[in-house]
């Protein structure tokens, strides 16, 4: 009598199961990583969409770096302590965002230039601070995170940030979109523009700090911007962009984790997730229905009217 796994299709199923589902059934840390990244995708990707539409994609990048010295200071004081590093990161992120905005308003420097200045200083300062106490391994952890070591408190933080983000986004959604499309109009009907901008910057910092715990400073911004940029190739509607970007984030998280597990030690999980997001982005760039390259090269016959 043939065993349960003897026919070719059954063997193929078993193989697929081992590859795609098995790691998550078997290992707690894989499940935690997946949950963490899903939570992060739900909140960071919509924030990334708005950043992109406001032409502030690089602002996200700069602020991700700006978080480092704060988190490093927390680390210096309390070691790998979640609350200390979170508070430090939040404080540093807000400080740099506000300082860059103030410099842009009060001096001749534009906001992007002043952000670049601040984040380079922050990055250097952060790396120095971590090196003061920790080892090269600690530095790697701070820079690239460790998505396979999410404990309960980090997961709670990620879920909490996701909830706060969605609620706040819902609250400021209308003026936020209005401020992106037609800031002059918003000014003429309401005084909420400044408040909305600040709340949104707060969301950016909050999500970067959350991402920092899972993916580290350098990659946190990846899950924010890559899915958003990829989604833009598929739809020209803000609401759909937000949903699609979140989905892309989750798919990248899953794909990255599976690939990293299959590749073993050769492919660390955090970068694998961002690489997967990069693959989604490149595929969208090539095949996207809204201005993808393939559409551009093979435009089809023009219409009658």
């Amino acid at each position, binding site marked *: 009598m043939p065993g349960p796994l003897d026919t070719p299709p059954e063997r193929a199923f078993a193989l697929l199961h081992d590859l795609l589902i098995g790691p998550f059934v078997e290992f707690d840390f894989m499940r935690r990583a997946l949950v963490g990244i899903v939570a992060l995708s739900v909140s960071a990707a919509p924030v990334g969409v708005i950043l992109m539409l406001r032409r502030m994609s690089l602002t996200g990048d700069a602020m991700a770096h700006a978080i480092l010295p704060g988190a490093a200071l927390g680390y210096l004081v309390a070691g790998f302590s979640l609350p200390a590093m979170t508070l430090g990161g939040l404080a540093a992120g807000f400080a740099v965002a506000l300082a860059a905005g103030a410099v842009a308003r009060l001096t001749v420097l534009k906001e992007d230039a002043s952000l670049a200045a601040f984040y380079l200083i922050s990055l250097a300062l952060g790396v120095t601070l971590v090196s003061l106490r920790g080892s090269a391994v600690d530095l790697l952890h701070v820079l690239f995170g460790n998505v396979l070591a999410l404990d309960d408190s980090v997961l709670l933080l990620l879920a909490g940030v996701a909830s706060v983000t969605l609620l706040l986004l819902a609250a400021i959604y209308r003026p936020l979109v209005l401020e992106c499309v037609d800031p002059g109009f918003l000014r*003429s*009907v309401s005084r909420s523009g400044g408040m909305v901008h600040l709340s949104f910057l707060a969301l950016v910092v909050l999500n970067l700090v959350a991402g920092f715990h899972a993916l580290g400073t350098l990659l946190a911004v990846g899950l924010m911007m890559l899915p958003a940029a990829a989604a833009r190739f598929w739809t020209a509607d803000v609401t759909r962009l937000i949903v699609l970007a979140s989905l892309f984030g989750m798919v990248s998280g899953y794909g990255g984790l599976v690939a990293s597990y299959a590749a073993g030690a050769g492919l660390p999980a955090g970068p694998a997730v961002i690489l997967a997001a990069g693959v989604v982005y490149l595929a969208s760039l090539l095949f996207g229905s809204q201005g993808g390259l393939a559409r551009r090269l093979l435009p089809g016959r023009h219409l009658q009217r």
Partner: protein
Amino acid sequence: MSVIRFTDLTLGYDRHPAVHHLSGEIAEGSLTAVFGPNGAGKSTLLKGIVGTLRPLGGRIALGSGHRLAYLPQSAELDRSFPIHVYDLVAMGLWNRAGLFGGIGRAARAGIEEAIAAVGLTGFESRAIGTLSGGQMQRALFARLLLQDADVILLDEPFTAIDARTTADLLALVQRWHGEKRTVVAVLHDIEMVRRVFPQTLLLAREVVAWGETGETLTPGNLLAARRMVEAFDDHAAPCAA
């Protein structure tokens, strides 16, 4: 009854006056053209009324209980933003819907009505980036319609707009006038001003003339307006008046 009253108003940039010692008032329900050469302070005056520019001197008093709508010269509108004509027009509901207010059946009917009134029916789900200049201006007029304001400020609403669109939108302006709304429009087409606008403010940084259009746009006044010195003088002495 005046809706807007200017008292010795000076508006400007970096201490240089763009509107200099303006006094007078705009009557409720009036239809006023603001006419004058480039750099005469026409747009600046509208910005002052809306409140985005603070006076360097003097005052602008807005009658209480009035709702203002403002169409800037070239809106700081991001036309690449992925949003549909329908949603752009729906922004006109801001005063009634605010942050969370639902957009009910009546409001949706209002949006469709406004879109129909500017002749954009069928364009509802078009991305704003695909509209032509004239269609965009129609959409912005639909938003103005929906704002249902009783004071409407238009800054060069017909510049670079074709004749048919201009005629359609001008009909809306006349409809507002018929509904006793107060309309102030910055214009460059003197024939249009003569034909449609009963009141004219001829501005050349200072008021050259202000009143009935026929009495304002005389050859003498127009010549005087043209003589305005455009350049700022960085070494000008502080104004004593």
